[in-house]
């Protein structure tokens, strides 16, 4: 579904009075998901269908200040068991003045403890409760979680090119630049900085962004039209000439997968960047 179809579908849910206790909204860009979540919460609270965008409920939801619409945005986007326990206690307090009580989970990952603790409340929330999970990828979640939710699938899209991404590219270009000049003192120092100023999850996410960079270079080299590129102005100046890009992408993917398993980040990234730049 694209965003408009999703909204249409949600309106139908309300009109037919088939509001479920749990939704999972996935796919799409984070902006689209957000829009969808806000629309759904307004829909559940507002007296009008589709929501009027004028009443106190709507305005408060828009500003994220609605007392009966709670946003659970755990740090590092990983839901912990304590968050779930809190929701479990809180959901049984009846709504303040809204018509329902809504919990919105902006998460991208769930530990198995949290997921299992989540199961019971997800299956049978109180009659006024609605839990909404929004995440980029539905495959993160246990099948038992997913089977308890109504699924709203937005169209999967490529990530967008953003300012933070540009910053990472800058840092990355610097590192490779040092490698090219054989200035290994600065090279290792730059990697050190790259690691220390981020925590584990951020490193994982940002290596993912480097992957996007190589994807773009690869596609550009193969002559794929620009519309498929994430960064349209990509230049391949820091690509070592005799390294194979697919090989590099594979390496990054491998590293990304390993970061979850408590490896030494510094050494892993040293290894990765050396691998990338070994062809200079």
């Amino acid at each position, binding site marked *: 579904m694209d965003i408009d179809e999703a909204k249409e579908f949600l309106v139908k849910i309300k009109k037919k009075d*088939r509001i479920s*206790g749990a939704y999972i909204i996935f796919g799409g860009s984070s902006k689209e998901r957000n829009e969808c979540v806000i629309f759904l919460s307004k829909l559940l609270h507002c007296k009008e269908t589709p929501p009027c965008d004028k009443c106190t409920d709507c305005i408060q939801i828009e500003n994220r200040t609605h007392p009966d619409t709670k946003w659970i945005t755990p740090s590092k986007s990983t839901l912990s068991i304590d968050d779930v326990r809190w929701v479990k206690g809180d959901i049984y307090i009846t709504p303040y003045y809204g018509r329902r009580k809504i919990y919105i989970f902006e998460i991208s990952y769930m530990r198995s403890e949290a997921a299992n603790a989540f199961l019971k409340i997800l299956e049978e929330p109180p009659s006024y409760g609605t839990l909404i999970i929004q995440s980029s990828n539905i495959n993160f979640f246990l099948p038992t979680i997913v089977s308890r939710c*109504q699924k709203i699938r937005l169209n999967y899209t490529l990530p967008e090119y953003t300012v933070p991404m540009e910053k990472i590219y800058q840092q990355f270009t610097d590192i490779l630049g040092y490698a090219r000049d054989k200035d290994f003192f600065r090279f290792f120092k730059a990697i050190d900085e790259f690691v220390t100023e981020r925590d584990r999850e951020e490193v994982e996410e940002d290596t993912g962004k480097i992957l996007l960079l190589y994807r773009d270079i690869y596609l550009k*080299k193969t002559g794929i039209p620009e519309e498929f590129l994430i960064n349209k102005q990509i230049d391949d100046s820091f690509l070592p000439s005799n390294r194979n890009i697919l090989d590099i992408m594979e390496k990054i993917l491998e590293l990304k997968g390993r970061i979850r398993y408590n490896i030494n980040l510094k050494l892993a990234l040293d290894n990765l960047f050396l691998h990338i730049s070994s062809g200079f």
Partner: protein
Amino acid sequence: MYLVLARKYRPKNFDEVWGQKHITEALKKSITEERLAHAYLFTGPRGTGKTSVARIFAKALNCEKGPTVKPCDKCESCRTITVGSSMDVLEIDAASNRGIDEIRSLRENVNLTPSNARFKIYIIDEVHMLTEPAWNALLKTLEEPPPYVKFFLATTTPEKIPSTIISRCQRFNFKPFRYEELVEKLNEICTKEGFTIEKEALKEIYEFSGGSMRDALSILDQLIVNAEDSHISYQGVKEFLGLVEEKSIAEILILVRENDLKKLLSLFHTLLSEGKDPAIILEGIIKKFKVIILERIGESENSIGEEDKKLYLSFNDVDTETLLNAISIVIEYKNRLHMENIPVVLSEILLIKLAHMLGNKTTLPQKNMERKDEEVFSGKKSTIKEESIFSQGKTDKEKRHSDNAVKGEKVVMQSEEEVLSQWKVILSEIKKARPTLEAALREGTPVKFKDNTLFISFSKKYEFHKSLIENKHNNIKTIEDALVKITGIKDVKVSLISEGKYESPLDNGEIKKIVEFFDGEIINVEE
């Protein structure tokens, strides 16, 4: 107040429990024959009725008219259990109360007699999440609880439960629903809700639910919202579930085979914009590969259709082993989808990889085998991927020469540059004769070609490789033969040198003597 279908149609007595006859019969019998155990363990995949059966069983035991196989649903006890407010049926979510402290307080409460019912029943759901100490604290109570206490444990992952616990319980395994069972129930529910549904639609729902009633009902729930005129059509289901047509998958694979990345990616993105899920596309690819392989070994169940025939033929000259490899790569990536927040990019990389692997521009199978030997030998990771886009960067000149070399035409090269630029071609020529020799030789760099002699230099690190080549006289001969074949120059010699030796003539003893004799110094070296 609306309840989702899965909750609305949650079975309320043993007869409503669907598809688990082997369990309900046994439980009924244990009630009528008064052979009740004190602990039961219900295991099975999601949405098969574990929690429901536990609740019904609790009702049956505690009903005022009971214990009976048909709880009345009217008495105080039955009603409180339905609402979930019974004092004596305690439903505990073990996933959020998983520590030893919770189990300790449970042990204390076990000693209190039931307040007004016959039994005190603990339904412990998601029991696999209990911690190790919690399990062990439970052991004694579970083995010999007071006569009025019953434990019902329910879980989807029995392998996480200690065997000491399992041995203290009566275990019942719930099985996923079979097609006929699920469809019958879905039909029944549709009729009750006042909807009609097409048969193909039911089939797709079954496929998607994986035999879980709750999954099937939650899909049905959403389909009902989308349905027009109280009718659920196959088309609607397909669109809703984001199922990918087999035709599109076949098309993807043909493009993979043709190595046409441009069309491949644009097709992939069209599918995404139609709302397809990358994971489902990958699944489709795996299934299609399976079709091809089954057809090839003559084990396919029914004859393949027109579309598949075309696909099958286009994969004719890819050997089965490569196909199996491809499948395992797709599976690996599909598993990775569970970890990555960039599913689209991941799938793209997979498609590119497949195109390289299976695309008809590379003659992969043999090469792959040979390279494996070298990997072991040179300890360096090299795969087919090296073939990739850089090979397109070959200069025309190189291409011309390599073409010539293939055709066997003699082109006589003279200049040093020309010979050096042919190094890669020479290497591949050597490889045909002696793969291991080529692997060792790869570490060297041709530095100079003078007086019909090619100098190949090895850095200190690769002294070993050099000595390896030198050890056999045959080796030099092979290199020379290849040189003659590629360059067309007769009587070519090959000389292996260690790095630095060639570059600095100053190490030469004669020159040293001259310098010493004149007590001079070297200002400039010219050749």
